[in-house]
């Protein structure tokens, strides 16, 4: 949104994981919102949890650079192997996080704005409950990408998740809005209970795509190994997706689910498979 203008004044905080935790590290304090307005030394005192023990961020990371005046003016770069650091960027509203390698679960969970760029892989639950902003993963992601948190029926509301590689199961459960673009394949369960939003799978999908889906769109470029019987083909359409135009077979569904009526017409979820 405000990127181009703000980037010039952004200040960068570099966290380097020099003393990895023995247990998984709960890193929800690593957000531009928490770092904004703080000097490097103050940032090093922020709480992180390792199991049931609370410790300062500086126990695990060396901190270089101060936060910007606001979250939007703050960029965080994470170096070192963060494969076992969870919840980076959780609930962030603005600013930028760059993770140079891998990261653990819940990256960008409940994020409302700003941008996260992960250059490696992430574990499960990245971008869950997302409301806005951008989450870019260059590698693969595991399960529940952009899904709703457990039990919650109000899933992803907005924003963009882009995973260059493949994803595990339960992508975009209860999606309500926003866009998820998967460069590779997706395992079972895509957009289950979806009521809006768009999911693009540029590789193959294994099955249960759009189960109990009420509204919203799914694009699958490759094949669906086990398509659901609740989707019915209604024609062929040409569509522009992620900057390129292609021909798709158009299905509506899930016919086993309730569907709202808008202006006298029943609204279905759309599933497009590339021809």
């Amino acid at each position, binding site marked *: 949104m405000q990127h181009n203008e703000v980037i010039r004044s952004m200040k960068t905080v570099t966290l380097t994981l020099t003393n990895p935790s023995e247990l998984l590290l709960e890193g929800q304090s690593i957000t531009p919102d928490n770092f904004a307005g703080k000097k490097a030394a103050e940032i090093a005192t922020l709480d992180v949890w390792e199991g049931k023990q609370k410790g300062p961020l500086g126990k695990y990371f060396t901190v270089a650079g101060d936060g910007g005046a606001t979250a939007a003016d703050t960029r965080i770069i994470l170096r070192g192997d963060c494969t076992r650091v969870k919840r980076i960027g959780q609930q962030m509203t603005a600013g930028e996080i760059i993770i140079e390698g891998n990261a653990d679960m819940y990256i960008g969970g409940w994020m409302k704005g700003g941008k996260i760029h992960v250059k490696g892989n992430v574990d499960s639950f990245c971008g869950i409950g997302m409301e806005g902003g951008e989450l870019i993963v260059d590698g693969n992601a595991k399960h529940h990408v952009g899904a709703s*948190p*457990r*039990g*919650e*029926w109000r899933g992803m509301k907005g924003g963009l998740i882009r995973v260059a590689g493949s994803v595990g199961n339960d992508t975009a459960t209860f999606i309500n809005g926003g866009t998820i673009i998967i460069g590779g394949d997706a395992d079972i369960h895509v957009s289950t209970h979806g009521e809006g939003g768009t999911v693009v799978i540029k590789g193959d999908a294994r099955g249960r795509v759009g189960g109990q889906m009420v509204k919203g769109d799914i694009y699958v470029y490759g094949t669906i190994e086990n398509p659901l019987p609740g989707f019915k083909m209604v024609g062929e359409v040409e569509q522009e997706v992620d900057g390129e135009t292609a021909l798709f077979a158009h299905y509506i569904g899930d016919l086993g689910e*309730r569907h709202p009526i808008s202006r006298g017409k029943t609204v279905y979820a759309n599933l497009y498979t590339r021809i």
Partner: protein
Amino acid sequence: MSELLIKNGFVFDPLQGIKGDRMDIGIKDGKIVETSALENPKTIDAAGMTVMAGGVDIHSHVVGPKVNIGRLFRPEDKLFKSPHKSPTCSRMEMGSSVPSTFKTGYDYARMGYVFVNEAAMPPLHSPHVHEEIRDTPIIDNAAMPVFGNNWFTLEYLKNNEIENNAAYTAWLLRATRGFGIKVVNPGGSEAWGWGLNCVHIHDPVPYFDITPARIIKGLIETNEHLGLPHSMHLHCNNLGNPGNYTDTLESLRLAEGYTPKNNFGREQVMHVTHLQFHAYGGDSWGNVESRSKDIMDYVNAHDNITVDMGQVTLDETTTMTADGPFEHHLRALNNLKWANVDVELETAAGVVPYIYSPKVKVCTIQWAVGLELALFSKDLMRTFVTTDHPNAGPFTRYPQVITWLMSRAARDETMKTFKWLDRTIESTSIDSIDRELTLYEIAQMTRAGPAKALGISNIYGGLAPGMDADVAVYPLNPEDMPSDPAAIEKAFARCAWLVKDGVVTVKDGEIVAEPAKRTIWVDVKVPDNAQVQRDIYEHFLRHYSVKLDNYSLFEEHLHNPRVIEVNAAQ
């Protein structure tokens, strides 16, 4: 044990008719005593504050299987909504609309409550209920087993065998360590086993061929035959539907001609719960309107009935009731997740999350209906504060409900947030009511009245010498009431002091001690009844999936009991 003197507070005790007099309250060995009986008491300075007996909640769903289903299937009710562990509490607290047992106990205590009546215990699952009672700290609990869809009850009442039904009721109260007779959608939850409902009180129950009206009357007769502390406690048929006020009035009329027979000071024969859900006019959600005036005109004129509000608090919450067909109906309205359970021979239950939004006309009308019921009441010793926790809102919102009742400005403030304000005002009377309840009336609605209706006003709900030393002190000066309604809410949310059984339990709104809690149950002696013994044996042999020997609560499930004995054998 230690002595305590609560000095110089403004005391409100409707059971003794004390209306804000500056008085001292003496406490010794866990009981209220005359101050002259104290020798060397510790002193609590309550100058400039409001002193009341500990609060008594007549209807709340806090323990048992359906509450736990609510906890289990709503993890989102805990996420980002659970406070960090208080350093002064022994246990973690979790959840919002369906709090953990520990949070339930702590939050009631912080509001100055000491007694909570669990509104619906499925008899078969009474061990679960009692295990959760044990795990709910501080507050004393009772639990009412449900009778309105029980096969024994339906059979006895169909044949007009009140004496047999009374013997069975006494047996079940003992088997479940229950407190009184709860009736939920009489006949309707049994009909739900056939995928049906009893919407009106003259709809026959499938197979049993008895009407809800007959069940209600029969259970009033049973209750008075036994002389239980509490009356028959009714959740009417046709809950939550437009136009249901006529069914409610018909149900209320069933109490005509009955007088209370008991030794507990109870004056009603029927308690009608969450009346808000039963006071709607219109014939569709498009034209639903308040009929609280019609209902309260009837209640005001009939003093053998007590009611509680079931106030909608405009929150996201979790509905849960033994009214199985209603929950099915609700899930079809909001398309959210639904849990449904049959309890063999006895009852059913359902659970559905629900959002009461100030942006939805029906919700804001419901909000108005609940408040109107209390504001139209001519006798607040018979009209009690509840939210039917968690059905119309969590109990933690009682301070807000009290504030709405005490302040027209607070109501106006809330109404400003309504999307359909004009339609709400058109369909209700709330905007024409200027009444603001007094602290004395609030004390009636939140402790004295419920205690009396439950038949426990010799122990709870008042401050007379000899009663349990349960005293709440609120940081509110009746001679200098705050002009900002938010200050009233804050005072009732976090009492300055709560003394429970003579132990200082809450100080400045924080839990500082967790005194032993009790389970209150009613043990009724009835003459030996071979017929009923044989019927129980037969039903367990033929119909129950458990053996009779494994059915009754084992002693180890019962936590710190306080038995109320009733002799109906003469």
